[in-house]
């Protein structure tokens, strides 16, 4: 290699320092003076600058992250975060059940009619209303009992959690948040950018599909139009041919 012929003292270290502009003035001037007369050093410097320029274009995936909304930078967690998962699920089921009862929701699947969802109001005018209403009322009673029990349970949980939060609010962050919770938050933070990216990509994909579909429709329309012209022309030609044949036959 050409640069092996150069014997500048501590050459490799000086080249790197000069390349990254991390060199004191005295050494800089000395090296620049040397480079002005040393072809191997000039060539190598130019090549290494080219390498750096190429490296600068290598973007890690993190550069694609955008539209971030950090769940970590959320403020005080809502009280529901403190409620156990089982209680949240149970409460959700209760709300769903009670809502369904109030709305007199009726979900049916019939082979002929398919899936049908009706509410008490939509069935009010039907003849079945008197028969259904007492049953709904009878079913609502256990829900109310369960709901009352659940409300009591939730209130107790909330009170307990409030007390815990008050007690821990004076402790250092490093102990106030469990590792698992912190890990979860960091994971959410990292996933948020991916999710935004996925959603963005999905939206673009849908748009692309729409565009392709629209183009297909336009192409088909053109094709049908062209075929219509062709068919009209063909029919005209056939009629002419028939006339010629008829004339030829009659002349025999």
């Amino acid at each position, binding site marked *: 290699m050409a640069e092996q012929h150069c014997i500048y003292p501590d050459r*490799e*270290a000086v*080249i*790197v*320092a000069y*390349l*990254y502009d*991390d060199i004191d003035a005295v050494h800089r001037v000395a090296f620049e003076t040397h480079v002005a007369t040393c072809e191997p050093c000039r060539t190598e410097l130019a*090549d*290494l600058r*080219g*390498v*750096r320029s*190429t*490296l*600068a*274009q*290598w*973007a*890690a*995936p*993190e*550069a694609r*992250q955008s539209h*971030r909304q*950090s769940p*970590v*930078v959320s*403020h005080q967690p809502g009280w529901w975060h403190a409620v156990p998962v089982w209680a949240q699920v149970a409460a959700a089921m209760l709300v769903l059940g009670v809502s369904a009862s109030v709305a007199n929701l009726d979900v049916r699947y019939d082979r002929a009619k398919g899936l049908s969802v009706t509410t008490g109001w939509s069935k009010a005018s039907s003849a079945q209303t008197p028969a259904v209403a007492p049953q709904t009322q009878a079913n609502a009673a256990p829900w109310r009992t369960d709901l009352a029990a659940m409300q009591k349970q939730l209130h107790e949980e909330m009170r307990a959690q409030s007390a815990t939060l008050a007690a821990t*609010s*004076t*402790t*250092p*962050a*490093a102990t*106030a*948040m469990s*590792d698992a919770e*912190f*890990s979860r*938050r*960091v*994971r959410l*933070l*990292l996933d948020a950018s991916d999710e935004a*990216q996925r959603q*963005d*990509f999905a939206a*673009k*994909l849908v748009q*692309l599909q729409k565009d392709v579909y629209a183009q297909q429709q336009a192409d088909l329309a053109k094709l049908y139009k062209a075929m219509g012209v062709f068919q009209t022309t063909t029919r005209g030609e056939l009629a002419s041919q028939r006339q010629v044949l008829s004339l030829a036959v009659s002349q025999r």
Partner: protein
Amino acid sequence: MTWSDEELVTRSIGGDAESFNQLVLRWERPIYALAYRVIGREEDARDVCQETFLRAFRALGGFRGQAKFSSWLYRIALNLCRDWVRRQRRTPVVQVPEDVDVLELAAAREPVEPIEDLVERHDLTRAVERAMAKLPEEQRTAIILKEYHGLTFQEIADLSGCPLSTVKTRLYQGLAVLRRELGKRE
């Protein structure tokens, strides 16, 4: 108001979890980028990034400000990267996922980039990744910290636990290999 890293650390130690969240937001991208470039796999880089902040959070009380917070964080991340490389018992290879399609990338990018530019950049990225994969870990790490994180020679030396002169040698040798490998592409 924008707090410095060290101020946020102090506040975090004092019990302000929000301050640590800000540190995570501030340093998550650089740490993830570092991990990705060193070990080359997005999913693993994400794990390393998460583990880095988790360890930092645990050890926050022991951080005395003898080094910059970022250097401390980089050290944790680099140690985790080294562990990962040892666990894998192989040279890290930066990989573009097999199912990535150039046209998909084009569709996902805004504003729309000419396909020729996109393909060129894609090829360039692959070439850099392949060339970087040829470097020994210490040279690759030195180049990543210098090129993409702007650390000084001394900071890299401190992080790597080696003399300043060794850092320069590693950088020079690494760049020389890259020069040769990237030169093959032309």
